[in-house]
């Protein structure tokens, strides 16, 4: 196997493993639009990375973290619905990022690779980001697991039972922002959310516990990454979209197979 293909596979599998559990929470808490908003701010992060001459993932990470904190506090006001707020931040940051990129002289960026991912150009530093950042994100999530589940079910009940709901929520959003940032290389800012939610949605039909759903989502993610990369190599199609197509096909397959077991 070619070296670049192996690196792409390693990066893709790392992302899929992290995306499973986070995607499950995003499906449970209906945060898909939130993930999109974080991802759309990536251009701003790329500009920041180019300006400060640091690894672009770090730039994206910084901007995503900042946005996560802003959204956390923004959602506490009641004047605007949270979907409206997310829409403003989402498209505002996307456009601001594009404009600021255009303003930078002597920088020519390949928009396509940022929009849809550039997994075949996976470098060693990217791999380190994915596996290092992914390990950090997963350990954080493991630490927050039970309080997060309790909050998912009922926030006030969790609060009365002594869970520091705000702190847990803020930490969770920061971890999602980290996850989104490291996924950017594989899926690009337009497709990141799909890699989070499609495997989790596919896993839903097989799982009887939250933990099982998270694990199945990771496994299904790995299958889609392998399948998508294979398809991309076989038919010479763009890798990121090919992975998402594979994820979608698996999802459709899982829907069409009649459930033998009762849906728990």
């Amino acid at each position, binding site marked *: 196997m070619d070296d670049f293909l192996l690196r792409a596979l390693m990066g893709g599998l790392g992302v899929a493993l992290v995306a499973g559990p986070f995607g499950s929470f995003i*499906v*449970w808490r*209906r945060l898909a639009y939130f993930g999109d908003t974080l991802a759309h701010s990536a251009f701003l992060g790329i500009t920041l990375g180019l300006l400060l001459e640091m690894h672009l993932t770090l730039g994206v990470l910084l901007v995503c973290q900042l946005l996560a904190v802003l959204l956390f506090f923004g959602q506490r006001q009641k004047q605007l619905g949270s979907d409206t707020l997310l829409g403003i931040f989402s498209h505002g940051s996307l456009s601001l990022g594009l404009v600021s990129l255009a303003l930078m002289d002597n920088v020519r960026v390949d928009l396509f690779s940022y929009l849809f991912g550039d997994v075949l150009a996976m470098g060693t530093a990217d791999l380190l980001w994915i596996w290092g950042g992914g390990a950090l994100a997963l350990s954080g999530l493991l630490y927050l697991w*039970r309080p997060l*589940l*309790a909050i*998912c*079910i*009922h926030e*006030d*009940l*969790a*609060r*009365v*039972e002594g869970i520091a709901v705000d702190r847990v929520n803020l930490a969770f959003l920061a971890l999602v922002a980290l996850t989104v940032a490291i996924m950017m290389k594989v899926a690009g800012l337009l497709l990141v959310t799909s890699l989070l939610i499609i495997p989790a*949605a596919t896993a*839903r039909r097989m*799982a*009887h*516990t*939250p933990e*099982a*759903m998270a694990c199945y989502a990771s496994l299904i993610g790995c299958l889609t990454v392998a399948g998508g990369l294979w398809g991309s190599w076989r038919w010479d199609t763009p890798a990121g979209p090919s992975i998402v197509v594979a994820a979608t096909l698996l999802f459709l397959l899982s829907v069409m197979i009649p459930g033998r077991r009762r*849906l*728990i």
Partner: protein
Amino acid sequence: MNVDPSLLLSVRGLYLRRREREILRDVSLQMAPGEIVTLIGPNGAGKTTLLRVVLGLSPCDAGEIYLRPGLRIGYMPQRLAVDQTFPLSVERFLTLGGRQAEADLESALAEVGAQRLRTTPVHALSGGELQRVLLARALLRRPDLLVLDEPVQGVDVHGQAELYELITRIRDRRGCAVLMVSHDLHLVMASTDRVVCLNRHVCCTGAPEVVTLAPEFVELFGPVVGHNLAIYAHNRSHRHRDDGGRTELV
């Protein structure tokens, strides 16, 4: 503030305004151990808000809230909608508030009559079953005070009476106090020690038989309702006469 140390809970002079609207005005409420107190009042009277303030979930603008130090509260929220996408069994739901010993789980489920639901997914529970499971979760905290926000919501009339009886039995067995919100005046009267009639401020308070006759109550709920309630409240001590089965109040 000076509070009678035997009280579980004492609220004095509570004020709350939201967006220029008065939600609570000079509300006071005391609860003794083992007492069942029911908050009733029309929609928007501030019943749920008062519970939330007591639980520390909502801030208030003025007033004093005293909870006996170390008071353990079991809370049953008004609504719990578990998404279809969330694979969660009743057993797992009960342990989300903290790890539970096997025997405790078993006995809490038995106490509310829900043993057979242990492995059922939460989103597949019926209204009445869900309320029982929620109650079990509150009981697992070994509460001194149960706070129940419309505990019979989404339950048919027959089930409602059963649930209220269950709540009374739990109080009798455990000696915990119960503070609950109710819409349906009819059934709750029989299973409460004290009624607090709330309409942003406390209109009247007292034993159910007394409150239903109070002019403030009649003004709020109308004389017809009050009349029915009075009959129902005495229901337990009525007897049937042999001649034609008419009911006579005693």
